[in-house]
Every structure is written in C-alpha cells, then in structure tokens.
C-alpha cells in the first residue's frame, strides 16, 4: 500500500499529518507531504485510511 497527495487539490488543511504523523509530514507553509516515497508500513493501513477520509479536499490517494 502506498499514499500520495494530489498537489492540485491539497489546500493545506493539515489533517493528514495530524491523523497519520508516521505517513505524512508538514512543510514550512503547513502543507502535508508523504514521508519518503509514501510506502505504508505493515500495520499502518488504518492510519492511511484515516488520513484519506479526513482530507476535506479528497487530496490523499491510496494505491493498493
């Protein structure tokens, strides 16, 4: 499983890194980015799902 952020949609709500700090990190402007290449470690699938649901812009994508 892998997570990615659609940069066109992201508007900096900051929910992804609040919900799943192991998978996302904030930048100096408060916008979220995936950690490393976005690969979701085993056992963090639920965090990935929560981050995707919590984004008001539907900007977090999960690829199986």
């Amino acid at each position: 499983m892998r997570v990615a952020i659609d940069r066109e949609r992201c508007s900096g709500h900051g929910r992804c890194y609040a919900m799943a700090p192991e998978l996302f990190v904030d930048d100096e402007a408060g916008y979220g980015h995936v950690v490393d290449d976005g690969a979701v470690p085993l056992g963090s699938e639920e965090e990935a799902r929560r981050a995707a649901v919590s984004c008001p812009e539907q900007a977090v994508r999960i690829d199986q």
Partner: protein
Amino acid sequence: MVVEVFHVEDAPLESDRTEGWSYVRAAGDVIRQRDGSWLLTSAEAVRFGHRHPEIFSSARAFDRLGSPVPLIPIASDPPDHRRYRKVLDPMLAPRVINALEDDLRAQVRSLIAAFADRGSCDAVADLGRLYPTQVFLTLFGLPLDHRDQFIEWSETIIEASSPSSDGMSAETVETALALFTYLQECVARKREDPGEDMLGRVLSLEGDDAFSDDEVLGLCFLFILAGLDTVTAMIGFTLLHLAERPALRRQLRDDPSLIVPVIEEVLRLEQPAAMTPRVTTRDVEVLGHLIPEGSHVFLCLGTANRDAEKFPVPDDIDPAQADNGHWAFGGGIHRCLGSHLARRELRLVVEEFLAAIPDFELEFGPRPTVVWPSGTLHLETLPLVFPAGGRT
C-alpha cells in the same frame, strides 16, 4: 411564475442549530433565495464551489463589508491570491505556532485562573472575548496592554460588518479611523525595527513579494474581521457543549487524546462562519440548477457539515467520526488562513479549562442562544457555574 420565498435568514438557528440547518437543507441542494442570491447546501454542491474558484469568485464577494482597504487574501482570486498565500501561509503554519505554544498556554491559563476561584464565570466575556485578541497581539508583536482598547475597536467594526447592521454610522467610521491610525503607527514603527513576529515579517518582504501599506492594513483588518470573533464564538460553543455533557467531560479527563476529536466535532456542528460568499464569473449549472453569471452565491458550510452521506451521526458529537473531513474552515484555495492557529487556541483553551475546572455546568436559566442573522454565529454570553476553586 415561481416566487422564491426562502431566505436563510428565516432559519430557526437561534436556540438549536440542528433544527435551523435541517430547515435550510430541506429546501434543496441548490436554493434560489428571495433576494436573488443562491445557497449551495449539500456536501457535493459545496465541494463543487470550493473546487472552482474561477467560476465562484471571491474578489467581489466581500464588497458588502465596505472595507476601505483590500481584504487580503480572502477577497482575492488567483493569481493575486496565490502570491498572498505563498507569503502568508508560512507565517501561520503549525511550526510557527509551535514556537508560540508555551506563551499562548500561559496566557490562557492566567485568564482562567482569574475566575477559577469565583465559582462562576461568563465564558464569553471572561475568556472567549479576551484570548483571541491577546493571541493576535502576540502574533503581530503588538503590546498586550492595548488589549481592551483593541477589543472595543474591533467589536465596533465587526458589528458594523454584520448583515443586520445599518452600515457605517458616524461612530463606526470614527472607530475604524482610530484603529487604522493605531495600526498605521504600529506599521511605521515596525518598518524601522521589524522583529521576528508576523507583522515584522510581512513588512520585511522585498521585491515582488513586498506588501504596500494598504495591503498590510488590509491584512490586519482581515485578521480583525475573521480571526477574533470566530475564535471567540468557538470558545463559547465548545464550552457550551462540554457544560451540557458531564459524561463526555469525564471521558476527556480519562483520555485527553479525545480532546482534539471533540473540538473537531464542535467545529463541524457549530462553525461560526457558516456561509462563505462568492460571485459567479459566468453562467454555471450546479446539480441541475442554472446559476447566472454575476450571481451572489453562499457556500453553506453549516449544512454541508451535517450531510448524512459523509457523517453517520450528522447532528451530534461523535469523536469516532471526527476525522471525516468537515469544512468548518472552508475549503479549496480559500481554506481559512488561520485554521492551524484557531485549532491550537481551542485545544489550549479546553486543556487548560478542564485542568483548572474539571466540572462545570450552565447557570440555571434558558439555554444560551445564538445571534441570527449574523455574519458570525456566536453566543453573546455563556454563564457557567462550578465549585469555587475549580478542583473538588
């Protein structure tokens, strides 16, 4: 001919937002109001509005407020909007707020300590009105000793900008002038010695990023219009819901990790800025309704945040659905610039309030009501009672 009779101003929101927003939602996804303006109420319609700033423009949407300076960045469209946000977002980013957190926590703790021994307080007057202005002054590097004067000025201006106001009275104009004069003096002083605070950083911008004096004043004015009474209102709503739910308060005490989800739920249910204005740049079809070019459109966050398709328990607090992506801070490119700061203020208020006063309830009497119609849904007062000294 169809005569439109609906107007959101008639919604019964005063004592119960659930009743009020149900009334609005029942009128449809896309509603033409009797004054010719439009209301988008469903999650899908609101999302469409957020995703198309080129159709739903913000540049002229705030003209009603009659601001003498451009309201930056809320009343702008791309590409200007992008330029403003590029420099402003980093100034209100979580890591900037992290650096202020200890100071902001100490300030809210001291405000609460001032009434904790009394056994009663008006959470709006004694905390909600004071704290956001202190935070603004701290962030902008302005002296806290002008707090009460500042509150008086800003409340007069906010009141004049509300839809129920008759517009600018002589008193309002005088107040606006006094506030602008004060801010201009601060700006002049800060141009000499900018410092590391937000105002200093805006004034230090150079080249293409530099703000004109008008733009700096417009930014200050926006903070006053958008960043003070909204947080005041949310402090009131959050403490209202906690006062009414002793079991939830106990849950928060046993598991403080629930504080943030509960705040998110109160944001979703009570978002003070419940309708954000836009003006259409062309004819547009939304869910089968043709909205003509030049129409005033309101994105109704109050109803979208209670859309049953998105929230299994649409009208009550359920920490389990707190991560379902609400729009209390709007959405799209105009997502509230101060959302990270507002969230932090609310968390610090709740943490410190519960630490000092674990048990509190509404003073006996009618349930506090909100002012409606109003630009910002808010409680005028929130009288609370608790064991004197807070801790029992």
